[in-house]
């Protein structure tokens, strides 16, 4: 039945009561404030960036003519149809897509098979394997790029890597460029598929498979026609995540591609944003954003209806193991090999390289030194202008910045996440709940470099008539960027956390006379505590790993360990870069272990 619109005569009391109803409820105020903040931090910067691709800037004024601030299509023309469009856009776009597609082709099957083996097979030592398999994901992808270089580096970039040092000729196509990038990213992003598929498999009741067996299907038929279709939605969403992440990743592509002039959209974009014309860089970042949005929304269209059965039988379904039989030995060997190549070998080479005088020169005692860790400048065996990292004040500063950034950033992020989660769960089905969810999702569409370039554009000059000063080059801007970029993840964990707190618990307090703040303080917060801590730790790890996001804004004063390692690597100081990555790795692993103690599930991190 349609709702009939009752016309009521205007009454002052009614108006007064209506206003009081809204104002007296602090929840409404919180929703209003969050809306304004989300609008300022997400929508306005996006619009600002879009506007700046149509506005003439000072640097290009000579070429464009007219005045600064005039409307112009110069940047888009430059990007899309200019003489250099092939090298600026289409080449890198093609490279990005090639890298993305091949990363998906390698990482998704890899991760899915691993997930199936760990959840469903009778492989010995599954628990240990399950733990080890996620560790490569803990290692920042740019660290992987560095260890790749440590193994495969050749003459092209000066010093030799492990293999070249042993006299094995390493061609450029293997050491640098698309192959290296695809393999490195695959060894990182397989974790998405692993996490998705394994949790989907866990939620499927194995009775479904047993029914297939009773009907006379063999193992391969069961896998093909029952298990696979059931986990297909999760595999597809892993494909989407991997694709959109791989296209936007900067660190790996820059470390492995730039040396031989292999550019992807993300790396090319940064050249423009740092070297100008910035408008072109912003336009490229919009291309990246629309690409990611296109991929994600087409996926939602594709699996929207089917998604529903991904959790069917999720109620404590018994899970029977599938006997691998003769395949056990080869699969075990495959796993051990995988873990060796993905984790042990590169880590070993990376750690050892930090002790080498000349990389790729073997591990003879004469080639080993502690210089990279604790050496003073005058002890250097060859010309290096930096002391070992523990004597280098820059490193100390970077450590401090990293800790400062991760702590402040993740506390704020986790707090905001809980609040946003509260708003979207309590506002489920209401306009403000879905608006919050959608606004918070926007940063997820943007790769790190695109997102930070947007923030640079927004905050590099005073805004709101000087109310917000220019934040360019400040630590505040880096924190702000990290916080907002991690909103999607934090609010998702906040939502999951708040979903566990039934609305009735609050309503019961309401009836007993508790006001909003008493309900928050005495009911919601105490119950949300555990979820908050695990959400905090996961954000913490994620910010500590981050390079792509903050690389555009870093300078000598604000640099973090990740950035310092990246600069050293670009300067050819490979051993020192490696030493710093080892420190970052240790930092992250320690945090991961602590997070696990608090029951944080790394499967929720993306």
């Amino acid at each position, binding site marked *: 039945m349609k709702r009939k619109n009752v016309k009521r005569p205007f009454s002052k009391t009614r108006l007064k009561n209506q206003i009081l109803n809204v104002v007296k409820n602090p929840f409404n105020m919180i929703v209003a404030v969050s809306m304004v903040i989300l609008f300022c931090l997400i929508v306005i910067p996006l619009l600002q960036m879009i506007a700046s691709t149509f506005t003439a800037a000072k640097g290009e004024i000579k070429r464009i003519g007219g005045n600064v601030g005039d409307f112009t299509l110069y940047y888009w023309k430059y990007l899309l149809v200019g003489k250099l469009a092939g090298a600026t856009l289409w080449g890198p776009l093609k490279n990005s897509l090639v890298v993305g597609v091949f990363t998906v082709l390698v990482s998704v099957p890899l991760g899915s098979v691993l997930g199936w083996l760990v959840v469903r097979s009778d492989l010995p030592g599954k628990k240990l394997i399950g733990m080890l398999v996620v560790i490569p994901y803990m290692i920042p992808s740019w660290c992987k790029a560095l260890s790749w270089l440590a193994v495969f580096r050749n003459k092209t970039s000066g010093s030799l890597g492990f293999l070249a040092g042993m006299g094995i000729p390493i061609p450029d196509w293997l050491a640098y460029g698309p192959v290296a990038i695809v393999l490195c990213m695959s060894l990182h992003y397989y974790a998405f598929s692993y996490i998705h598929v394994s949790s989907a498999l866990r939620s499927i009741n194995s009775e479904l498979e047993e029914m297939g067996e009773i009907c006379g299907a063999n193992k391969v038929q069961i896998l093909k026609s029952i298990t696979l279709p059931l986990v297909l939605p999760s595999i597809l969403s892993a494909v989407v995540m991997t694709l959109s992440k791989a296209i936007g990743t900067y660190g790996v592509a820059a470390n492995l591609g730039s040396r031989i002039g292999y550019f992807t959209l993300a790396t090319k974009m940064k050249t423009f944003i740092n070297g100008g014309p910035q408008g072109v860089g912003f336009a490229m970042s919009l291309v990246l954003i629309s690409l990611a949005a296109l991929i994600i929304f087409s996926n939602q269209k594709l699996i929207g209806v089917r998604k529903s059965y991904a959790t069917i039988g999720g109620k404590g379904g018994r899970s029977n193991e599938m006997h691998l039989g003769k395949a056990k030995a080869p699969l075990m060997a495959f796993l051990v090999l995988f873990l060796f190549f993905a984790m042990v070998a590169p880590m070993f080479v990376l750690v050892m390289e930090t002790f080498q005088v000349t990389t790729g020169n073997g591990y003879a005692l004469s080639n080993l030194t502690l210089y990279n860790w604790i050496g003073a400048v005058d002890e250097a065996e060859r010309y290096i202008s930096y002391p070992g990292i523990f004597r280098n004040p820059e490193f100390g500063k970077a450590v401090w910045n990293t800790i400062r950034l991760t702590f402040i950033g993740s506390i704020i992020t986790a707090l905001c996440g809980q609040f946003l989660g509260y708003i979207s769960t309590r506002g489920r089905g209401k306009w403000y709940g879905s608006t919050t969810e959608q606004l918070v999702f926007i940063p997820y569409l943007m790769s790190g470099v695109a997102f930070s370039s947007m923030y640079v554009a927004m905050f590099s000059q005073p805004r709101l008539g000087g109310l917000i000063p220019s934040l360019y080059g400040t630590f505040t801007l880096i924190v702000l960027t990290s916080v907002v970029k991690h909103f999607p993840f934090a609010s998702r964990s906040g939502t999951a956390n708040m979903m566990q707190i039934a609305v*009735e618990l609050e309503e019961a307090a309401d009836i*007993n006379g508790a006001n909003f703040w*008493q309900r928050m303080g005495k*009911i919601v917060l105490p119950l949300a505590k555990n979820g908050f801590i695990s959400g905090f730790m996961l954000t913490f790890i994620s910010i500590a790993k981050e390079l792509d996001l903050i690389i555009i804004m870093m300078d000598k004063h604000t640099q973090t360990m990740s950035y310092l390692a990246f600069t050293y690597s670009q300067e050819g100081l490979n051993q020192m870069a490696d030493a710093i990555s080892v420190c970052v790795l240790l930092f992250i692993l320690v945090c991961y272990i602590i997070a696990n103690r608090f029951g944080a599930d790394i499967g929720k991190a993306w």
Partner: protein
Amino acid sequence: MSRIELKHIDKFYGDNHVLRDINLVIEDGDFMTLLGPSGCGKTTTLRVVSGLEKPQNGVMTIDGVEMINADLAYYAEPSKRGLNLVFQSYALWPHMTVRENIAFGLKIQKLPKAEIEKRLHDSLRMMRIEEYIDRYPNELSGGQQQRVAIARAVASNPKLLLLDEPLSNLDARLRIDMRSELQRIHRELGTTIIYVTHDQVEALTMSTKIALFKKGELSQVASPMELYMNPIDLEAADFIGNPRINFLEGTAVLQNQELHVRSELGEHVFSADDMTDEPIPEGEFPCVVAIRPEQVQIFEEDGPGRLPVTVYANQPAGSETLVSLQAGKSDFLSKQIGLAHYEINQKVFVQIPPEKINIYDAKSTRLIKRAR
């Protein structure tokens, strides 16, 4: 102790009209049950009374004090209405002990310590759970949690106690225990109670009055016996009672202020005194004859007013026996107390007291002749 009056309450969720012009008076001291299948608006009504939902139209008063006036957009806060609510899920705060759960609301009211202690122990004693005072909710069984939830609600001395399907999460035996417990509480406290359930047995056994809901509307408000004996329409008759009421097709005609009904049960004439105010169609019209199974008595021999029938099936269940019978083309059920045995296809005779028969207009489905 309070009298609640709901006037023209309308509630929409979006375009979904979930409460349609609800008018209901709950007298002081009543045990009022809101009864109906799921999704009929009974819980929404309870939440409107509690203040957790705001209706778009209507007025509600408690003891003459306006609590809701949708025209003025005035809604008193839940805590200002002098009521308390027991949720279906109990909603015990898992991070607080039984003591803290019950004392929470009292502390918020800033009652003196001694008073809090007294009320805490009174309510625990009343619910017979004093020994669990320092336990956490997850250390209690479902039935004990239920008692804590009620103790928490009564500790605030509410004038009005609201219960939302409180027994639906308990097993069958506990449910029967809690039914008598709730009746005892109602007597001891003298509080007005509004009780939501979809279980007709709960409604019939505990309430002083029942409000029957149908698709967001109130279809009948009556005492349990009246509701059982004279359901207002076919749907209500079908809903109330287990085993279900027997319906037989028939025809009726109004002659000289008397209702003449013909059916497989024979011919009946009912006097005007037993008729309801429903309009009677002109001439002969189709009707439905309704009779409760326990009113159908079976005899082996013929006698005055008895009707010959055939046994179709026989279901002895210890304390009662259900016998399916056939009269002409119509089937109906008889409920006999104790064990009884009849052969299938056996010829028997039934006696049905005419004053216990309900007659419904088949077209409007409304009750036109009452049972006495």
